[in-house]
């Protein structure tokens, strides 16, 4: 590798040629043939244009790679990608004092500027953040591969829907009780299967996720089956968000003398959700430095060593499972409230896979990474609405690229810094 020789163009040109052909094959059918009524219209210029842009990009990279600047960039990236985990120096928290309040301020003001459509998207994005954080405990911290995480999400959502129907509970009751119920489900599932490892655990949890969905789908008398169940709107101190309150109550907008708008309900859901997410993030960052969180990570690193140190691995695994399930249940309550209706199709395997993708993309174990990945993976498809048909394709491509450039995820966790007392 000669650093200072002038860049050669032969190899990059050849590679660009190959890239051009490949791009033509990929984009040709997609953009070159447009279905118009009953006939197919050829637009051969478009794929050629796209392919030449791609090839030009490849050429640029090929040449840049040989310049000192490009090599410096590559070396830096390689170090970041392979180095993985680092220990904090103990003085990098100053930036956080500025960034965290800023993020919270933006989060709080967003519902007042966003329209209804984007508010809905933001709520969904935050729900996925919550789900990602929950699964991150199980997969990222404790290292237990759970492919049926959506089951706990369903438990939370259906608890609110069915609870309102049979027991007349409301949003706030569900917010407290659903996570507990989901945690119980986590324990019930966890206890018999936690003696299994890796792939076996994954299969059992996958089965559990499907069982919950099938039960919800087929137990017509109780859950409403595929027709689903409706969910009541949330209330705040007994004030309802409907235009006219039931049974002589006061609706929210009348109480405050505001014009009626259906946005209030969404805003309210968003704000409560934001508070829950922020509390959860705070809790999880603390948890990673608490004995429980450390034990989870130790268990991921080496189970036998954990046992030799007097840690009850079954209890530790179970606690990770329950905490994850609890967070999933919490997300379910918000999902049900946001939708106003639940049915089993919302809880299929694709959801589990999406949540797992969020955790893997974010960097197993990194809270910040999971948040970013959740926001990207839920908001990006909304921005690219026009390409909705290719969403899963783009999703796959993103995963492949990530595995090449950042095999350990977007953000690698930093270990906390410790100093003895003087």
């Amino acid at each position, binding site marked *: 590798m000669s650093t200072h020789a002038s860049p050669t163009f032969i190899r990059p040109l050849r590679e660009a040629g190959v890239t051009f052909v490949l791009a033509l094959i990929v984009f040709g059918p997609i953009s070159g043939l447009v279905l118009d009524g009953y006939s197919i219209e050829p637009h051969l210029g478009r794929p050629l244009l796209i392919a030449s842009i791609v090839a030009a990009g490849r050429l640029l990279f090929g040449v840049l790679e040989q310049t000192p600047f490009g090599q410096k960039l590559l070396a830096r990236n390689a170090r970041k990608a392979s180095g993985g985990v680092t220990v904090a120096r103990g003085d990098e928290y100053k930036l956080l004092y500025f960034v965290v309040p800023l993020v919270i301020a933006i989060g709080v003001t967003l519902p007042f500027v966003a329209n209804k459509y984007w508010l809905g998207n933001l709520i969904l994005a935050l729900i996925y953040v919550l789900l990602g954080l929950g699964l991150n405990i199980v997969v990222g911290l404790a290292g237990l591969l759970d492919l049926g995480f959506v089951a706990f999400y369903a438990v939370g959502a259906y608890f609110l829907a069915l609870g309102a129907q049979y027991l007349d509970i409301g949003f706030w009751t569900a917010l407290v009780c659903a996570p507990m119920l989901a945690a119980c489900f986590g324990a019930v599932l966890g206890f018999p299967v936690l003696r299994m490892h890796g792939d076996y655990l994954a299969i059992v949890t996958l089965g559990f996720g499907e069982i919950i969905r099938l039960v919800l789908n087929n137990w017509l008398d109780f859950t409403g089956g595929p027709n689903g169940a409706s969910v009541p709107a949330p209330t705040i101190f007994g004030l309802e968000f409907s235009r006219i309150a039931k049974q002589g109550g006061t609706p929210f907008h009348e109480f405050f003398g505001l014009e009626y708008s259906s946005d209030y309900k969404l805003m309210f859901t968003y704000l409560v959700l934001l508070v829950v997410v922020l509390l959860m993030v705070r809790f999880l960052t603390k948890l990673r430095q608490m004995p429980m969180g450390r034990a989870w*990570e130790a268990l991921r*690193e080496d189970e036998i060593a954990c*046992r*030799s140190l007097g840690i009850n691995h079954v209890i530790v695994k179970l606690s990770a499972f329950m905490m994850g399930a609890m967070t999933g249940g919490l997300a379910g309550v918000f999902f049900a409230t946001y939708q106003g209706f639940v049915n089993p199709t919302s809880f299929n395997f694709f959801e589990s896979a999406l949540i797992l993708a969020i955790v893997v993309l974010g960097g197993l174990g990194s809270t910040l990474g999971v948040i970013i990945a959740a926001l990207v993976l839920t908001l990006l498809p909304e921005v690219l609405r026009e390409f909705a048909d290719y969403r899963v394709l783009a999703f796959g491509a993103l995963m492949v690229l990530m595995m090449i450039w950042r095999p350990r995820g977007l953000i690698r966790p930093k*270990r906390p810094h*410790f100093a003895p007392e003087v």
Partner: protein
Amino acid sequence: MDPRNLLEVRNLTMRFGGIVANNDVSFDVAQGSITALIGPNGAGKTTVFNCLTGFYRASEGTIHLAGDQGCAPLEVGGLLSKPLIGGSYLVARAGIARTFQNIRLFREMSVVENLLVAQHNHLDRNLLSGALGLRRYRQAERDGIERAFHWLRVMDLEEDANRLAGELPYGRQRRLEIARAMCTGPRLVCLDEPAAGLNPREKADLAERIQHLRNEHRVTVLLIEHDMSLVMGISEHIVVLDHGEVIAAGDPQEVKNSPAVITAYLGADDDEEGAA
């Protein structure tokens, strides 16, 4: 149980299917001693270790650990077969800590974190008090960190405190594993080939540290080791295993002169005679 002994192994037999790894093994580990378990490769030393530390359930025989501060002795097998909550972690809590032949550190965690995990049972594990940062929790964490740094100083690892365990050099990883075992507050620490892969200077250093642990920190040491100069130098009692059976036991002089040991272990080579 003899009050001078910390550990009494009686008629220990371990079978894996038809293979008898240990047959009728009996020996004692005296309080405050350094006892070595030696023998040729495949003699069943590590199997004995795994039985002592609760990773295997012995097929027959008993392993008694003296009770702490006048309590009744504990039987290791009984800890394992406790209904529902039984397991090897109870053995560690009873006061037996161990290291592993192939190092088992938490590689992607920092050195201090490795030591804090070892103190899991001494820290405040209440989620609520941790989340709210109560004083009791903060005090327990501070004590834990202090204890971790204490053992880092003892094992001369303080400068590596905030590095990842996996990126330490091999010799330091070995020392960190011993420090981690000591952080559990054990009465008996079992070292499985602690000198494997160390150079002569590191070996000499390790011998000194093991003696220091016993003399200053009042812990009983049981070690498996192949390096004869290390074993003969520091141990007061040596148990020799061959083909799963105890063929000799006694102080270094007795073991060196035992004909059974010489034929089974040292006798094959002329040079060994000179060394003995």
